[in-house]
């Protein structure tokens, strides 16, 4: 069986090589374009990669129904599970490249994405992370690496702007050293917030997956200088635990968070999270593209999207379609250049721009507030590039 697979792979290689030559000779010939997906379908990153892939698949099916990228290059997704393992990600990336992938999608985290990017960078193959948000990601790899989701610094900027505009001046930052996201996002927030004139009155730390916040809460409660808001990038299960325990201790200071808390669990907390503001890649207002996507997603898969990653996955499909259309070629370098020049693409999550950025998209960030057990849409912001703190 293995031999046959290998022969198949060799055949695929030969076919694509032949197709490439043919393609060069006659550009009208419809050729398949392979999108390699090195994603974590199991392990710690699976909660992010699984929904992202589900969204991407829907987009690809739709695009193929119309003839493929740019209407003429049928798309084939080759998906391999990295098991959330770094070494496996690098190897699998190489395999996908060997299998003829012209575009590569990497897991929802900076580490494996950088490891994969180091394989694709020398080959010039455009590489997009599913939803990695660490802004250093693209700089660490080079010009083939693209973020798709709003970066940590971008989200923090939008949040800080909003908080300052609401007249809040003193912030308590709650960080966890356990991940880039939980550590850096509040720090970016602090940076923007102090630059605007706000003050950081205290910092606390927590360990992820350790639901007990009582000591931290007691500390916050007894702060001499009472904060106007608490900013954290903690998510499940830490965020619900924190808010529950904070409110139970009688502290009513509003808590701001980032996109990872836009989930059913947090919504399910009801009145506890009243006043919590968070960022999102997009917001499904009635009649919006996102709302339409969610309906569509439910029709196709039988269940509603569990997060914003499904929509983001779908948008990756749109981004790639746009880039290939623009490049009008399956040459990775051409696609890369086309990607880098995308400006104000209307995705289902909002507006996406790569032109003029370091390939972490400058894109719209939705601000949402939990109120009375429901989500209230505050608005969408695209911050000025200058406001966003450096990675």
């Amino acid at each position, binding site marked *: 069986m293995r031999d046959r697979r290998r022969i198949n792979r060799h055949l695929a290689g030969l076919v694509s090589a032949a197709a490439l030559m043919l393609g060069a000779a006659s550009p009208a010939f419809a050729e398949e374009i392979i999108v390699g997906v090195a994603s974590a379908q*199991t392990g*710690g990153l*699976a*909660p992010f990669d*699984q*929904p992202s892939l589900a969204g991407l698949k829907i987009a690809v099916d739709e695009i193929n129904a119309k003839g493929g990228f740019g209407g003429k290059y049928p798309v084939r997704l080759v998906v391999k599970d990295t098991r959330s393992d770094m070494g496996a990600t690098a190897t699998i990336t190489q395999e996908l490249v060997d299998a003829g992938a012209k575009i590569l999608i990497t897991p929802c985290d900076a580490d494996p994405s950088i490891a994969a990017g180091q394989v694709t960078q020398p080959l010039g193959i455009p590489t997009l992370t599913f939803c990695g948000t660490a802004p250093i990601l693209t700089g660490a790899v080079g010009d083939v690496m693209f973020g798709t989701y709003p970066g940590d610094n971008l989200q923090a900027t939008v949040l800080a702007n909003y908080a300052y505009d609401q007249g809040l001046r003193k912030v308590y930052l709650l960080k966890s*050293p356990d991940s880039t996201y939980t550590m850096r996002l509040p720090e970016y927030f602090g940076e923007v917030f102090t630059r605007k004139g706000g003050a950081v009155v205290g*910092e*606390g*730390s927590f*360990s992820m*997956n*350790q*639901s*007990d916040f*009582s*000591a*931290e809460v*007691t*500390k916050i*409660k*007894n702060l001499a200088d009472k904060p106007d808001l608490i900013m954290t990038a903690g998510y*499940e*299960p*830490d965020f*619900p*635990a924190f808010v*529950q*325990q904070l*409110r*139970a*201790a*009688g502290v009513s200071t509003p808590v701001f968070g980032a996109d990872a808390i836009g*989930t*059913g*669990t*947090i*919504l*399910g*907390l*009801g*009145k*506890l999270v009243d006043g919590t503001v968070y960022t999102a890649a997009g917001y499904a207002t009635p009649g919006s593209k996102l709302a339409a996507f969610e309906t569509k997603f439910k029709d196709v898969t039988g269940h509603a999207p*569990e*997060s914003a990653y499904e929509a983001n996955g779908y948008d990756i499909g749109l981004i790639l379609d746009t880039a290939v259309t623009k490049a009008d070629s399956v040459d990775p370098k051409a696609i890369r250049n086309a990607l880098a020049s995308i400006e104000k693409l209307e995705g289902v999550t909002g507006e996406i721009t790569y032109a003029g950025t370091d390939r972490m998209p400058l894109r719209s960030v939705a601000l949402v507030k939990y109120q009375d057990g429901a989500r209230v849409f505050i608005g969408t912001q695209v911050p000025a590039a200058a406001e966003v703190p450096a990675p």
Partner: protein
Amino acid sequence: MLVQQIVNAISLGGVYALLALGLAIVFSIVGLINFAHGELMTIAGYCLLGALLMGVPLAVAVVVAVASAAIAAVLMEQIAFKPMRGASVTSLLITSFAVSSLLKVLFQNGISARPQPIAMPSWMTGAFQFGHVSIGVGPLLSIAGSALALIALELFLRRTVMGTAMRAAAEDFNVVRLMGIPAGRIIATAFLLSGLLAGLASLLWIAQRASVDPLMGFTPVLKAFIATVVGGLGSLPGAVVGGLLLGVIEVALQSALPPDVAPYRDAIVLSGVILVLLFRPDGVIPAARAQRS
């Protein structure tokens, strides 16, 4: 503030104690450090979720959840650990790792990799005010829950034949069998109890975090493991003491460490564990084991 932190410490330590006790009961009888204990918690969580989704009242759902963890524990023993009886502690430990990782894959692919929300009733997030001190319903519930469970377990171990037999079996399993008490039933009871404790701890844990996910069992079982080691592997009073101690130390460090040092908290706690082991290799309260010549 001090009173409040003490309450915090007891409440956290209580949950650790329940978990540690679950590990210790099984270890004392069959010499297995069951790392799949965390997955029993996850099973309880999913069953709680399932029951609630089917519209079962909370009280009933709680019973269903705890019972399911207990049944799962007994099944786990029957399927995975029974063929391994008498194997070395390390073999058993590693088998339990394998079982744990198998179950995680099952949850991730069979249910969902994403956390599933479990809405806790709002009264659980209230607080009582005692003068300057306000104490949350959550911590109180967890203190009361752990205390009741510990008392119930103590009564079971002291007042019933099976309980007495289990204490005896922890000391000298073979002699208990010589009294005509079936080995299988003692082992099954040990797993049943550990499952009940895991289920209960799971409820208290979930009450704090409001969601279930496939990987949720890992952190608590790690803490429980540390607690049992500090307390004395296989010693039931040791497990309780170890759990409480760990809770107290964690809360104390969390509230006392300056922000610069705070990230090193776990390193400090674990160095403490090594220190305890250096001076008391068998833990704070070593398990009573029959000396066999």
